[in-house]
């Protein structure tokens, strides 16, 4: 079971579903409201780099709600060449982004 980088004060009923090394795909949804999953990464597949911990959902906090239960937040690692078709740089170059669990699916 993956240990979180930060043990937060939020008691969460939402269990982390992914382990370090799991391949995950970012959902390609485009809903309304305040969203912290950048447009450019949606639909792309990466690897779980670490579990950051569980944090209140910013989509809900933005709407003056408490964002609870806290959601697992991960750092997900992507290869630049997988994200940008015309990427100029080393094949080894990486992008690492924090993504909440509800935006991720098993790849």
């Amino acid at each position, binding site marked *: 079971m993956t240990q979180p*980088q*930060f043990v937060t004060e939020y008691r969460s009923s939402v269990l982390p579903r992914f382990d370090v090394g799991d391949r995950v795909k970012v959902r390609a949804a485009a809903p309304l409201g305040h969203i*912290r*999953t*950048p447009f*450019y990464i949606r639909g792309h597949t990466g690897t779980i780099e670490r579990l*950051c*911990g569980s*944090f209140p959902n*910013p989509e809900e906090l933005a709407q003056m709600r408490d964002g609870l239960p806290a959601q697992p*937040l991960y*750092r997900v690692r992507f290869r*630049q060449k997988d994200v*940008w078709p015309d*990427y*100029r*740089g*080393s094949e*080894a*170059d*990486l*992008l*690492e*982004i*924090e*993504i*909440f669990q509800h935006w991720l699916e098993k790849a």
Partner: protein
Amino acid sequence: MSDNGTYRPLTYFQLMEVSLRELLVEKGVLTDAQVDEAVEDMRRRTPERGAKVVARAWVDPDFKQRLLADGPGACESLGIDVPKLRLVVVENTPQVHNAVVCTLCSCYPRMLLGIPPDWYKSRNYRSRMVREPRAVLAEFGLSIPETTQIRVHDSTADMRYMVLPMRPAGTEGWSEERLAAIVNRDSMIGVDVPKV
């Protein structure tokens, strides 16, 4: 609370700032003293704080391990207060160069490094850094060899990032103070490297 005694027309935004502040004070939500104190608190937070952390990590391997595993705890152990900062420190090595951006706004480890520079918040940096980091770094005068992997961190949620740069050659035997003096803010964002 006024800047000086001279009359000067306020912009719409400056008028908004004073209006909001006066209303908040009248309603007992905040006091002028609190605002003044918070301004001074933020002034105190400068990149020298981050530089001190980097210098310690360079001379003390145990501290460095702690910094990588528990960024906030390591900072607090040096007497550097970083309230609520979910700090993740990423280490540069000969194989890996790290750089940080917030494409969505301007997230930055403010409690450690202070207020971010204008360019970090600019459209051009936020747009291009995730897509063509090597070209952007070259514009900053930093050329990273093809054999070195670049990792770009997009600060999209609760984590805040600081780059731990590599200690340059030619600094053997230097005191921590002398080492901290060559660690600039840009090297902790990842668009520069410390130079002797």
